[in-house]
């Protein structure tokens, strides 16, 4: 009788440990389960950082009559030739106040070549270092320039941390793609992050020749925003 309480406590410890093991995930393969809120604000992808590229078509699918509204934006690169730099650009925030941390990792991939349509590349953005795929920004009329994966660092608001990485080059894909001149059709594919687009941009139905310029290093000029909770 004298030992009963300790037996109960021991059994309780075993059960609690077992249940904890069932419920709590282990950090593995770069998966942090911090519950931190991660937000990525995509920026215009052309010209050098701190420049103001022309927006040549408001939110659209294809920038052609009848100018159907969708999520893409067309960015000029101020160059009449092809082979011009295209950048993955974003401001990255985390709710973690512990300084600058790697919130994601980007992998440039060619999705489609110009041999059968538009040249399309995308960047797979995975959580942490090798976590789940969270966001897929895409760039039309572009070939991959540097296929190496790269880290995406973030920090807590109001401090800012940005990524500007050359990932592609513009390409003449006009033989089988509805396009004219070197530019980037910037869009996204759905993935597990929640998605919001900046409503400050015009739609193609109202703007399809020259929609003005946007400073590509101003977080308020973000084109689209991806958000997720780390580990969930």
């Amino acid at each position, binding site marked *: 009788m004298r030992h009963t309480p300790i037996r109960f406590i021991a059994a309780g410890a075993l059960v609690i*440990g077992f249940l904890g093991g069932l419920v709590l995930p282990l950090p593995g393969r770069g*998966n942090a389960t911090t519950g931190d809120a991660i937000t990525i604000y995509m920026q215009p992808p052309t010209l050098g950082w701190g420049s103001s590229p022309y927006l040549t078509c408001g939110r659209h699918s294809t920038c052609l009559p009848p100018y159907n509204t969708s999520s893409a934006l067309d960015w000029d690169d101020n160059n009449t030739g092809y082979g011009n730099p295209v950048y993955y650009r974003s401001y990255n925030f985390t709710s973690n106040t512990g300084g600058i941390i790697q919130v994601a990792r980007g992998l440039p991939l060619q999705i489609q070549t110009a041999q059968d349509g538009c040249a399309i590349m995308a960047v797979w953005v995975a959580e942490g270092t090798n976590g789940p795929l969270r966001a897929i920004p895409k760039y039309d009329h572009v070939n991959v320039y540097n296929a190496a994966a790269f880290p995406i660092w973030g920090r807590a608001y109001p401090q800012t941390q940005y990524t500007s990485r050359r990932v592609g080059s513009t390409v003449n894909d*006009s033989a089988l793609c509805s396009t004219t001149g070197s530019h980037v059709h910037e869009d996204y594919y759905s993935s597990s992050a929640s998605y919001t687009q900046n409503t400050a941009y015009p739609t193609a139905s109202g703007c399809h020749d020259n929609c003005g310029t946007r400073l590509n290093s101003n977080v308020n000029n973000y084109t689209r925003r991806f958000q997720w909770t780390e580990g969930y």
Partner: protein
Amino acid sequence: MKIKRIVLTLGLLAVLGAGGFAAAKLIGGAAGTEAERPGQVDFDTIERRQATETAQPRFVGELLGIFIGPTEDTWPKDLQDEASQRLAGGCVDVPRSEAKSLDFPRPVALPKEYSPEELVPARVCSGQVAGLTWGYTVSGVEGIPGHVQISRSIGKARTYDVASDRVSVEHFGGREAIFIRPITPDGLAQIAYVLFPEPFGVTGVQTFNLSEADTTAVAQAVAEASK
């Protein structure tokens, strides 16, 4: 003595708790509940596969009357000239109805999981109908978006920078075609190609993030539609 007993008891409880945790992890792992989050990708593996492929000798040559090389300068001179003349006059959109000569004799019957993308106009280059395209999206490997692009276009040369051992001639739906396999059969984050020779040029299929088996199934449907 009393303090020692308390410390020993707490230590025992900690060991039991950790043991329970480990047991749950072992059982959970064996049941496949660990690290099974959707869309989990290993970039290091993808990069390693790509690097291995890039280190292999590249395919340059002609199969079934279609020339393939990593860049246009590897093509025969007449094919290079033909391609540059086509682009020299510029390319414009025309309604698809004006490119009926390139259309499939019958619709491509893909399973309903393949969602067709918005149809885009046909292209005319230097006054000549150059091509018609069809795009589809589908849930691909690891539940990550996969893509299919089908084209019917003039010209008999392609710039594909691929390892020679990925290229072969196969039969799909009773038709001969050039098959450029994905780097690995799972097709994760990789492009594969199928090219059917046609009197007007080529029927081309590109897939991204589809397994080799799924690409084969798409190619069979395209072969049936093009007969």
